């Protein structure tokens, strides 16, 4: 399967023979796929197919029992999540994940951690360069809030935002970590049509800024519309891979995933 759209040809994420077992349960077996620079790849599959497990392996929250994951030629096996984030591979979470007690602005500042440079002594001695660094971070935070459209909410406590905006803030946090590749875990789950449309535009804007995207999503119209290429998982294995048009016609996929009939395809 060669990538169709938007692929500059260079492999950024390569997954080779990855397996994960929880006790006797095989969550992933012999997972192989590649993501190319600048692509939006959709990772789909029925519940329990192993999508979130795969995300956890790519971002260091789980170690695979076998196989290897490489990001831009760096082997990720054995690295901690924060090391992987430092390489530019950043994820969002399926369930709303924000710092609920802090303001929206503080949330993004926390996300900007990796871009800050100030050290302990700068802070304690209130050196001028601490002030400069903090001002830079504040500017960067405002810019990110503008991109996701939450600038009007900056001073609100994150936990008080409506659901859709909390999900947006989750994406803002990930963007703040300066990803070169973003893993989105069900970014539009539970959203209404207008909220999903907003997220889709955001995803495309993020890709346009040069970030590669791997997307797990249940919302078929969204995945089909936004992805260049789709990888279908079922019972921990890849059962199909290709462009949205190909996937929609694949008999295995229809049987395994879309279930009875073709009502959503």
């Amino acid at each position, binding site marked *: 399967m060669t990538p169709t759209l938007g692929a500059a040809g260079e492999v950024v994420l390569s997954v080779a023979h990855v397996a994960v077992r929880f006790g006797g349960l095989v969550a992933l077996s012999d997972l192989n796929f590649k993501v190319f620079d600048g692509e939006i790849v959709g990772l789909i599959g029925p519940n329990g197919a192993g999508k979130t497990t795969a995300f956890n392996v790519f971002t260091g929250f789980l170690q695979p029992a076998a196989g290897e994951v490489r990001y831009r030629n760096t082997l990720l096996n054995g690295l901690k999540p*924060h090391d992987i*984030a430092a390489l530019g591979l*950043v994820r969002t979470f399926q369930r709303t994940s924000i710092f609920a*007690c802090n303001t929206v602005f503080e949330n993004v500042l*926390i996300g900007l951690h990796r871009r800050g440079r100030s050290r302990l002594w700068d802070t304690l001695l209130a050196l001028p360069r601490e002030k400069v660094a903090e001002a830079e971070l504040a500017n960067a935070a405002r810019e990110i809030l503008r991109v996701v459209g939450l600038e009007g909410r900056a001073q609100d406590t994150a936990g008080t935002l409506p659901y859709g905006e909390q999900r947006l803030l989750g994406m803002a946090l990930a963007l703040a970590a300066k990803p070169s590749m973003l893993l989105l875990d069900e970014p539009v789950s539970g959203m209404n049509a207008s909220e999903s449309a907003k997220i889709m535009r955001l995803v495309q804007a993020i890709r346009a800024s040069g970030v590669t995207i791997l997307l797990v999503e249940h919302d078929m119209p969204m995945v089909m519309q936004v992805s260049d290429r789709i990888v279908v998982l079922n019972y921990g294995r890849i059962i199909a891979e290709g462009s949205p048009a190909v996937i929609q016609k694949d008999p295995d996929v229809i049987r395994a995933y879309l279930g009875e009939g073709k009502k959503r395809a």
Partner: protein
Amino acid sequence: MLVAGLSGYVIGRLSFKVRGAYFVIVTISFAEVTRLVALNWVELTQGPLALTNIPPYTLGFPGLGNYTLWNKVAYYYLVLALGLVAYVVISRLVGSRIGRAMIALKENETLATSVGIDVTRYLVLAAVLSAAMAGGAGSLYAHYLKIIDPDIFLFIYTVMMVIMVITGGKGTLAGPIVGGIIFGFLPVILRPFAAPAVQWILYGGLMIVIVFMLPQGIIPALQRAIANWSGPTRDRSGALLAGSAKPGEGQ
């Protein structure tokens, strides 16, 4: 202080492999080991006889000669000054990049590591800073009393500090101060009336009452009361006053 910071580093590295209750057990064990060493390593600590020949604190002023602190008032100001320094250090830290990383870890560790915050590094840093401060306080204490008695390593003193923080309000800057004032004065007030054992029962009772009535501690409850009193209005920047209570740190 340096020694304390260093042991904070060592204990931090070792014990942050475990979390929650297990972490508490590891650190309590370490305090207990220290007490047993203080009690039994007679060559170093004179055991139960205590170390008694500790000189009073001498401050060296360049060009002005030395000033030895003999009386209580002088000690009071020295301790007050260092307490202020500690407060300033912590309050600067809370508002900084490092403080934000620590707050993030407290609130949601998974999310914090996903944006690139190194958990172990910041937990250890927190342990080192607090151990260094406690070490500074300990050395002042020793010079003030001029004696180090193994009893000072008793479990009750460890618990006492935790009680101060919890009743005052953990995660706030003023909380430990308020808790410290309450539980610092209580023994003095109670001394004429109650035996130590009775005092401990009273502390426990007081803490239970406070925790039941103000589960988050005195300071957060006060902040909420003030916010409600002035009405849940929005201030000019659009922030809810009730929600803009200082999201402090520093447990």
